[in-house]
């Protein structure tokens, strides 16, 4: 069953404060959507709303024909997986133990993961070519490796939709592309992926398919949505970030250039 995730005239925010309104998008299986916006524009709030952790202030989020608001947290967790930014965590778990946590939505409240859950977790690691991490300690991995493990955890939940919160933030240059390529591979294997990023080039690199989209949230809460290359023009980026930005053609796609910033 392939159901996409869609938002319909969604308004996001907290009881006392609205952050953005009129968010509408459709994400098909096997496609990607990048979300760009300055700090504080509501990217994380949008994620929390899509995950059903925060009620929408208006509009609705749908999985196929079903409204998220009518689903149980367990059902949502089996369908949409959240990949947080990689931190070291509070305790030093082994990698396999971190990945197995994804099985919570598939297990009874008193149950522990069994052989089949272990198998699914190992397969998720193998899908990302990090099977050999299984017995290592999570805190001892590098930032990029930890991010891969958290993506593997999302895969182990057997969710068809992945929400990645700034997966390349705080990673070194090489690790950023390791993660971007992993996202592209997931997309090509049929998973629907939404990721937030601060780098327009990352959106342009991953969202190259005909069904791929980009959503931008400006500081004032205004929304733009469309095919990535059409949406992310120099002028649009300049308006989004308040900087003199131009796109120049590079050998592998457009490159973002920022002229010396005028003092704001």
């Amino acid at each position: 069953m392939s159901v996409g995730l869609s938002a319909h005239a969604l308004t996001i925010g907290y009881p006392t404060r609205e952050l953005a309104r009129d968010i509408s998008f459709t994400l098909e299986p096997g496609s990607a959507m990048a979300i760009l916006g300055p700090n504080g524009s509501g990217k994380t709030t949008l994620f929390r709303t899509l995950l059903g952790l925060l009620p929408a202030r208006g509009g609705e989020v749908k999985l196929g024909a079903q409204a998220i608001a009518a689903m149980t947290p367990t059902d949502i967790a089996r369908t949409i997986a959240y990949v947080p930014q990689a931190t070291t965590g509070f305790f030093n778990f082994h990698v396999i133990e971190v990945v197995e946590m994804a099985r919570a939505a598939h297990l009874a409240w008193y149950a522990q993961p069994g052989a089949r859950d272990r198998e699914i977790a190992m397969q998720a690691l193998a899908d990302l070519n990090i099977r050999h991490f299984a017995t290592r300690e999570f805190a001892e991995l590098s930032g990029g490796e930890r991010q891969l493990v958290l993506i593997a955890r999302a895969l182990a939940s057997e969710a068809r939709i992945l929400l990645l919160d700034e997966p390349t933030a705080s990673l070194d240059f090489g690790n950023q592309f390791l993660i971007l390529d992993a996202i592209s591979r997931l997309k090509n294997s049929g998973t629907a992926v939404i990721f937030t990023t601060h780098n327009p080039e990352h959106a342009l690199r991953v969202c190259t398919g005909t069904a791929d989209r980009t959503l931008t949230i400006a500081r004032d809460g205004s929304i733009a949505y469309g095919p990535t290359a059409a949406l992310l023009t120099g002028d649009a980026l300049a308006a989004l970030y308040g900087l003199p930005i131009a796109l120049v053609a590079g050998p592998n796609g457009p490159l973002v250039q920022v002229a010396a910033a005028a003092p704001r």
Partner: protein
Amino acid sequence: MPITRTTTLYTLAIAAALGMLALSLSVGRFPISLAELFSLLWAQLTSGTANAPANADVVLFNIRGPRIVAAFSVGAALAAAGAAYQNLFRNPLVSPDILGVSSGAALGAVVGIFVGLPIIAIQGLAFGGGLVAVGFIYFVGDRIRGHDPVLTLVLAGVVIGSLLGSGIALTKYLADPYNQLPAITYWLLGSFASIAKKDLAVALPVIVIALLPLFLLRWRINLLSLPDDEARALGLDVRRTRFIVIVAPTLMTAAAVAICGIIGWVGLVVPHAVRLIAGAEFSRLLPLAAIIGGTFMLAIDTLGRTMAQIEIPPGVLTAAVGTPVFIWLMAVTFRRRA
């Protein structure tokens, strides 16, 4: 963690517990040899006669036995409670006292002594005081929404805990310095010396029943150590799980404190040490912490009643042993993380 290593750890912990149990049953002012010990136990099981000195059975089953069962189960309860709280508060340096269960129980007991109530009422006040203190702190933390709920709980716990502490101080100040004050001080230091079978009859079932939900939730409690959003996105009912993981350790700790007074350190040091050895995974941590916590408490109590002419309160010994061990552990872990 490889399965073989886990099995080894369990085997070692159980062997240490059984060894400590046998040692503790045999040593004391009325020594009972191992042969006599087994003979007595066998006789008890088969209702036969034992090959042991007169009164050995009284010492074993009415005096030393209950005390040993109490020390072991209190140690196990405190270590299990500490392990759960450390996960709940995402902090390896948290003890079961953080939500005020010990201060609440202490205030209840101290007031009971001050007013001159019988022992059973003092125990009841201690148990109730612990529950009321945690209930109040949970209520305050739950009311103040919109902020990190764990941090709110900790802050409420610290503030209300210090209020309870000043209540204890006031009662001590007002207490009769010749009769009540020594009794209060004695209670605050903790002791297994006066444990009788009837104390266990109530406290032990409470501890066992409260351990059950923790044991059943042992794997899911791992997810509580994640940020709330992450745990909820993984499908955990964070609020309900957190509630259970506050209530069960509170019941265990309140029951323990009610029969033997304040025992510090076990709930802090033992789970922390076990996590260093066995890893953080809670379904492995919980049983190991309980077994090792019980063994540690039993060792402390056995030491306390045999090393000197007078009994050394476990509260003093756990701190004396616990402080250097804890500083060493802190140094080792934090240096490794750096």
